[in-house]
């Protein structure tokens, strides 16, 4: 079982690189959706089967793998943006930084004071690496939709960590995480709407016009 889990987590890490290294927004969304599906399957592998667990798995796959990607895909079509041009951090440097962060994640995971049964698992470094890649995208891209993708990646990283911590997966933790995500997406949706209406563009760097001098 562990080997399958580890393989899925490695797939997650690879998907991170796919998202970090591409300029096509549609591809990024699909990659994040695939990551969401993998994350949805993971609890089923880690914990013994219950009806409750099944509901959670279905819920996560439905939200992370289907609903949110569809939502963003619609936004991409509506805004008629296919690619991210002129990012702050280019794609090759992004890939290099992503690799460095992933390596660092393993270093940090060594240092974290974990419970003995969690030491040596791939969950912790995978979580930190995904989180950092999310940050990388948030920092490096201009378009508001890329920001949403970065945010999703960040949430996925947190989710992986949550898998480790919530041994019995209480429904509340799950519901909380999902609600968090949905609210985040909605807020971003509203922000995108407002940015495009105010500046007739989805370039978040234009937001600096709002600062006070």
């Amino acid at each position, binding site marked *: 079982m562990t080997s399958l889990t580890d393989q899925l987590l490695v797939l997650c890490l690879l998907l991170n690189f796919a998202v970090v290294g591409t300029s096509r927004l549609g591809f990024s969304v699909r990659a994040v959706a695939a990551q969401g599906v993998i994350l949805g399957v993971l609890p089923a592998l880690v914990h013994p089967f219950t009806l409750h667990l099944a509901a959670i798995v279905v819920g996560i796959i439905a939200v992370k793998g289907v609903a949110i990607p569809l939502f963003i895909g619609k936004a991409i079509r509506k805004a008629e943006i296919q690619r991210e041009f002129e990012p702050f951090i280019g794609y090759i440097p992004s890939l290099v930084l992503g690799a460095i962060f992933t390596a660092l994640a393993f270093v*940090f995971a060594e240092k974290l004071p974990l419970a003995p049964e969690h030491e040596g698992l791939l969950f912790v470094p995978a979580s930190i690496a995904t989180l*950092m890649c999310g*940050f990388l995208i948030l*920092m490096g891209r201009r378009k508001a939709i890329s920001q949403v993708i970065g945010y999703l990646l960040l949430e996925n990283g947190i989710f992986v960590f949550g898998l480790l911590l919530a041994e019995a997966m209480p429904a509340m933790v799950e519901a909380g995480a999902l609600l968090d995500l949905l609210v985040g997406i909605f807020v971003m949706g509203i922000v995108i709407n407002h940015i495009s209406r105010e500046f007739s563009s989805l370039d*978040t*760097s234009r*937001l600096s016009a709002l600062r006070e001098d």
Partner: protein
Amino acid sequence: MLQDVMRDPFVRVFLAVVLTAFSGIPGLFLRKGPTGQRLATLCALAASALALPAILAALLAGEHAAYLVRWTLPFGPCELLLDPLALFFLIPIFLVFPLGSLYANGYWPNASHPTTQPPVTFFYGLLAAAMALVVIARNGALFLMAWEVMALSGYFLLICEHRHREVRAAGTLYLIASHIGVAALFALFSLLASRVGSFVLPGAGALHLDPSAAFPFYLLALIGFGSKAGLMPLHIWLPSAHANAPSHVSALLSGVMLKMGIYGLLRVTTFFPERPLWLGAVLLSAGIVSAILGISLAAAQKDLKRLLAYSSIENLGIVAAALGSAFIGEATGNPRLAFLALTGGLFHILNHSLFKPLLFFSAGSVMHATGTRDLDLMGGLARKMPKSALLSAVGVVAICGLPPGNGFVSEFFIYLGWLSEATAPFPILALAAPLLALVGGIAVISFVKLFGAAFLGAPRSEGAEHGHESPASMLVPMGLLALLCLLGGVLPQGFLALTRPVLATLAPSAPGYRLPVSPLWFTAAALALLLLGSVIALFLKGRTAGHASHGPTWGCGYIAPTTRMEYTGTAFSGIFTTLWGGIVRTTVTGAKVTGFPPAPARVSYTPREIILERVVGPLFKLCDQGFSLLRRMQHGEVQVYILYIFVTLVLLLIWVR
């Protein structure tokens, strides 16, 4: 059962605080018509009627009572304490607040201020309740919370006319100054909590520390509470704040809120078994400097309320100097000095909370009647509003420290304390007496200017010409305060009895002393003076009766005088301000009169505070330059903000072990 509960002074005070805090809430919903404001006034009067008798009775009996409130916050037990010191400072709150609330019905009615009246009424109650909570709190965290509510409601009251740029600037300055003070208080109470082990404030004399360990406590208290009390050089926020607030708000801010600074300072000093000599010396010198500079600046002002605000700095300076001398007396083993200075200082606290609201109320009446704050545009109001003029005259006499006002008695005790030092081993203290005399002299200049320019002479502007007497709702509070001012001067026994129990808490060795002057002498002197005054007035009236004629002042034969040629308030204080060029200056700007016949020319003048411009202003500019580096970090790029978060996260991950 209920009766027994209601007899408990604490229950009554607590009920009054709650009633005060909620007094403005109905008004927030009853926005139409005067009902909301009347309800608030009713609540305020009821709260006062409930609390004041209980406070006075408990204070005179010297009662102590501590109460434990159940709360779930993690700051230790929430204790409330009613000791003489707290009770003493509750008196001004429950005296000025209801009167100001009543006054607002005529001064800030719903009819003319429909949008600002409900919030002003609400925050007015909240401010009073927060101040009462500050006084009775015996838990550092509760104290800070109440303190913050107090500061913020003061801010919202102050900026109620925020359409004016000047008001916004004053509000911002107040907020900054207030938070610098609060920062010091946070440090103070955290330090205290780390020493004591909990946020519960230590009892009187319960904190035994060696002098070097006690130093930061005193220093932080001086900064935090001194800035609230407006002691120089921490006074910069005070003049503009008090000048730009509505008058009934200024009355509460100046008459009561400034005293919270003094209260805090006194409360912190009671934690220690003995006060160091340097604290007394610092307080004394800061007080004297504040008094002299404050009143000198007041004399130069042409804005009525700014003048009163600077005079608040002076009065608080006198109080601080008196308390400082008391600490010096205590530290040098001179209980007589401690006794006299404390008596005078505490008495002066009460007095200032009587005559300063009275004067702010009368300033409000004058502004209500003329529509301006500029003294040089007033004049001749004594004829239009004789009652307000009479009541203001009482306030002016009292604040100048002249008999038969109450200010005379309190300052008299302070003088006695200092003069009796002349033969003591520490005679340098006696030098404070002539300085206080100087302050008194300048105060007379300032207030003669205020009264003369506003009420006497001929009207200098359209507004002053159409002035009208205020409604009863404004005159009654003024009348009551004026009565109390006179009462304090004629029968000081009652007021002195109120200071006694506080004295016993602050300086346990002092109350054994008897007053060197029997209070009866004050009564006799004041009555004689009043009698003499009335005899002279009657005599003059009799002499001019029948053949009095009214006309303009003789203008050296000039045949077309206008009221614009009248001696203005600024002209009156002009000679004085030229003597104080280093501290205060009146800049005159305007073109020279040229041509024949002379072309029209304009001239304007503004009083300037040199210390503020030369010292405090550049200091703040320096701070601004320092912080501009920090501002560069805030540039509006979302991505870079995320970078900050990321860097912090990575640093934390590296740091963890």
